[in-house]
């Protein structure tokens, strides 16, 4: 008896201890009552103002649509996927979600096609490239909410000090300029290369697409290709030449952009919100925005769109969801949302309304040459994860071919 009790205690202790990670799901569903409809809205946080921004939208929407209540849940980007996966697994999917990749949900038959949850007018207002990017096999599932494009941020003062007169347009010029800036010393580095897990897939895409390669399309993911290998080897050349900051393979994007804002990085690929960040944190920084240097100078930018998607949780909510989407994408509400978050609009009317915005101009100009991730490929999530955890090894001196093969294998595994 005593022995078995003791063993029981051991099991219990071990169990308690190892349970902490295992399960944190089974969230509760917001249930409507009294003929009112309640829709659950799950969104990621883009900035400190995101929650207030959504609350403003919801207040306006609820005023116009009595009888519909919107439950807002804001999560960090880091947690968004875990949260929604757990909810889906527990049968409590949100009604509307704002997120990145949606192909996996569409493949599992969880989503409404876009045409079922917005009016035809709203649907027709999306720019074609974004609508295509949000479709699987010709059916649009995602409603592109925001777009973002990358462009090269250049610290004019550092380049001038290093004797570089014009910003680079090709890889070779970039290497040359970055090496010169790094040679200045004193903790200053030429090119900020964030291959750490945070957004490694974005920096990789800039190089792979910029070298004529890419990630593939909705049918096939192609990572291990000669073009990508050449790009990967050039990344290694940048690292070996000391043109980048040290430990590039383990440097995350956000902290590195902070360093650029502090004026210690010559050049870095960054986003529209970075303009606002510089304005706020270091308005004296002398910088300019130029097109991304590519292998042979061909114009290119990496476009990223985040989508609204509607989960099919029973017909009684479809009408409420449609009302919400139409309200959100009405020009005034939408433009206010996009400009407050400092992103680019995905609708034709939104683009027209923002045509005179100077800060956004370099990005809007780059959009026509935008290439997107193959995010409608069912294996894209796995590819994205593989880049985040593996591609940094390039900067640690691991064989480029082996790294690409490893990512390809993980991606094919799905």
């Amino acid at each position, binding site marked *: 008896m005593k022995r078995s009790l003791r063993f029981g205690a*051991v099991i219990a202790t*071990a169990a308690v201890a*190892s*349970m902490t990670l295992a399960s944190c799901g089974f969230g509760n569903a917001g249930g409507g009552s009294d003929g009112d409809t309640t829709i659950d809205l799950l969104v990621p946080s883009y900035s400190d103002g995101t929650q207030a921004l959504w609350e403003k939208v919801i207040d306006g929407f609820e005023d116009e649509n009595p009888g519909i209540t919107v439950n807002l849940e804001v999560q960090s980007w880091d947690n968004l996927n*875990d949260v929604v*996966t757990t909810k889906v*697994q527990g049968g409590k999917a949100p009604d509307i979600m704002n997120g990145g990749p949606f192909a996996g949900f569409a493949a599992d038959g969880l989503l409404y096609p876009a045409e079922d949850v917005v009016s035809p007018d709203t649907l027709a207002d999306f720019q074609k490239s974004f609508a295509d990017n949000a479709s699987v096999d010709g059916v649009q599932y995602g409603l592109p909410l925001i777009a973002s494009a990358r462009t090269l941020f250049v610290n004019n003062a550092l380049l001038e000090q290093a004797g570089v007169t014009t910003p680079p347009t090709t890889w070779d010029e970039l290497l040359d300029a970055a090496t010169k800036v790094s040679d200045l010393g004193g903790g200053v580095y030429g090119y900020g290369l964030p291959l750490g897990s945070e957004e490694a897939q974005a920096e990789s895409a800039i190089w792979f697409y910029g070298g004529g390669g890419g990630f593939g399309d909705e049918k096939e993911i192609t990572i291990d290709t000669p073009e990508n290998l050449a790009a990967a080897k050039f990344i290694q050349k940048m690292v070996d030449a000391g043109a980048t900051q*040290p*430990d590039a393979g383990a440097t995350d994007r956000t902290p590195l952009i902070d360093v650029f804002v502090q004026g210690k990085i010559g050049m870095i690929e960054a986003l529209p919100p970075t303009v606002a960040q510089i304005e706020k944190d270091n308005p004296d920084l002398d910088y300019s925005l130029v097109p991304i240097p590519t292998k042979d100078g061909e114009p290119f930018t990496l476009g990223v769109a985040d989508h609204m998607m509607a989960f099919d949780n029973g017909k009684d909510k479809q009408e409420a969801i449609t009302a919400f989407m139409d309200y959100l994408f009405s020009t005034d509400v939408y433009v206010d949302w996009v400009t407050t978050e400092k992103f680019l609009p995905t609708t034709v009317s939104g683009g027209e309304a923002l045509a005179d915005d100077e800060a956004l101009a370099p990005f809007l100009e780059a959009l026509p040459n935008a290439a997107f991730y193959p995010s409608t490929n069912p294996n894209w999530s796995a590819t994205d994860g593989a880049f985040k955890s593996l591609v940094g090894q390039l*900067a640690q001196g691991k064989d480029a071919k082996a790294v690409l093969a490893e990512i390809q294998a993980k991606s094919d595994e799905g």
Partner: protein
Amino acid sequence: MTASLTGRTSREGATADRRPRRGEGTSLRDLVIALPWIAPALLLILGVVIFPAGVMFYNSTRDISQSGVDRGPAGFENFQSLLDFAPIWGVLARTLVWVVVVVVLTVLISLALAQLLDKAFPGRQLVRMAVIIPWAASVVMTTLVVYYGLDPFYGIINEVLVNVGVIETPYGWTKNAPSAFAWSIAIAVFVSLPFTTYTILAGLQTVPAEVLEAARMDGAGRTRTYFSVILPQLRSALAVAILINIINVFNSLPILKVMTGSIPGYEADTIMTLIFKYIQTDHRIDVASALSVVGFVIVLAIVAVYVRVVRPMREV
């Protein structure tokens, strides 16, 4: 249910009162009588331990899509994909190093610290309070402080090391697997010290003064007294401290997650951080559950072996 239980409670409670304590009915009858008192605890264990554990075991044998849809039974395929995952052996070895090094260092340092805190000296109260601080602060916070301190661009620790001439240029401590892992061990020891020290300190205070006096009268030196008289009496305190530390350290995620999270590849991962990577970057709930089951079994095995070999519950 509560009502019927309480009803029975009072009746059975009364019977128990009339009966002499050490009666004939031992196991089952005693258990029934005790049930009303232990039922809340049992329910709690059922709800927060057994049920999630069951779900974890169940998930580990299912094929779950990236969006969380259960696509049916998978048998042992999830375990197979763990075996097929080349870096897994390095991860297991690193987990062992992580647990052993952290626990051994923690216990050794705590033994010394507890000895110091057991002596009467002016300001002892303040020093004892100071030892609690790492315990009171959030682990993530403590880790982040060190993490930012080690940043090559603006980290204060790097700056100090450069200024005193230990290194020439700032080093990316958290960007390279071996150094990030070593720093993580240091932090883990730091945050484990308070609990361990206090457990041992409590043990030290149960050592009777007469025994120490007797040892002194028999001519035992300081070292001899410590190893032959004090240490054996710390047995149960040490047993608790070691056991809880093993489990805690094995299951520790936040330190390694913060310190090694940005390092590519799997050169700095333990079982826990790998589970996290499976969930967060790969969205493989099924494989993550399988790995959790492996972790669970390992902890169980370690604890069982420990209990058998060390017999911590044996009376001194």
